[in-house]
C-alpha cells in the first residue's frame, strides 16, 4: 500500500525532497512532516536548503542557516 506521507496529493509537505545518496544508492523521498502526526511521537521537520549567511556572520550567530538563528 502506498505511504500517504509520500503522496503529494495527500501531503503538501512532500515537495521534492530527496535524502539518501544518489551517487551510491537509491534515492529516498522524505516528507517534511508526516501528513498525520501521531500523538506522543517526536518529529523533527526535514530541513530544506534555502541559502546560507556570509561566513563571518555565520560564525557570530553559530550557524550558517538563517532559519536556525534564534
Amino acid at each position: 500500500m502506498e505511504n500517504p506521507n509520500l503522496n503529494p496529493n495527500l501531503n503538501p509537505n512532500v515537495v521534492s525532497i530527496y535524502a539518501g545518496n544518489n551517487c551510491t544508492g537509491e534515492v529516498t523521498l522524505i516528507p517534511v512532516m508526516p501528513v498525520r502526526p501521531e500523538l506522543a511521537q517526536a518529529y523533527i521537520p526535514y530541513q530544506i536548503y534555502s541559502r546560507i549567511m556570509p561566513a563571518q556572520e555565520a560564525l557570530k550567530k553559530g550557524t550558517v542557516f538563517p532559519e536556525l538563528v534564534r
Partner: protein
Amino acid sequence: MDEQTTLLEQIMAYDFALYDLQLFLDTHSSDANALRDYKMALEQSENLRRQYQAKYGPLTPRYLPNTTCWQWINDPWPWDPKGSMNNVVL
C-alpha cells in the same frame, strides 16, 4: 584589527561554515545547492590559508614551504604574539 588577525578570523569563519554545511550534507547528500556552497567555502578557506601561510608562516606542521628550515617552531606562537624570547632573561 591587523591583517594577520583579520585573515585568521576569516579562516575560522570559513572553516566553521564548512563544518555546518558538512552536518547538513550528511543528512542531505543529494542537495546540489548545499554541495555547491560547500565547494565555494572550501575554495575560500584554502585560498585564505595559502595567503596566511605565505605571509605569516605555518598554521600546521604540514605546511612545508620551499625552504631548508623547519618553520613550525618559529616564533611567535599564536598564544604568544610577542615571541617567547621576549620573556627570557639571558
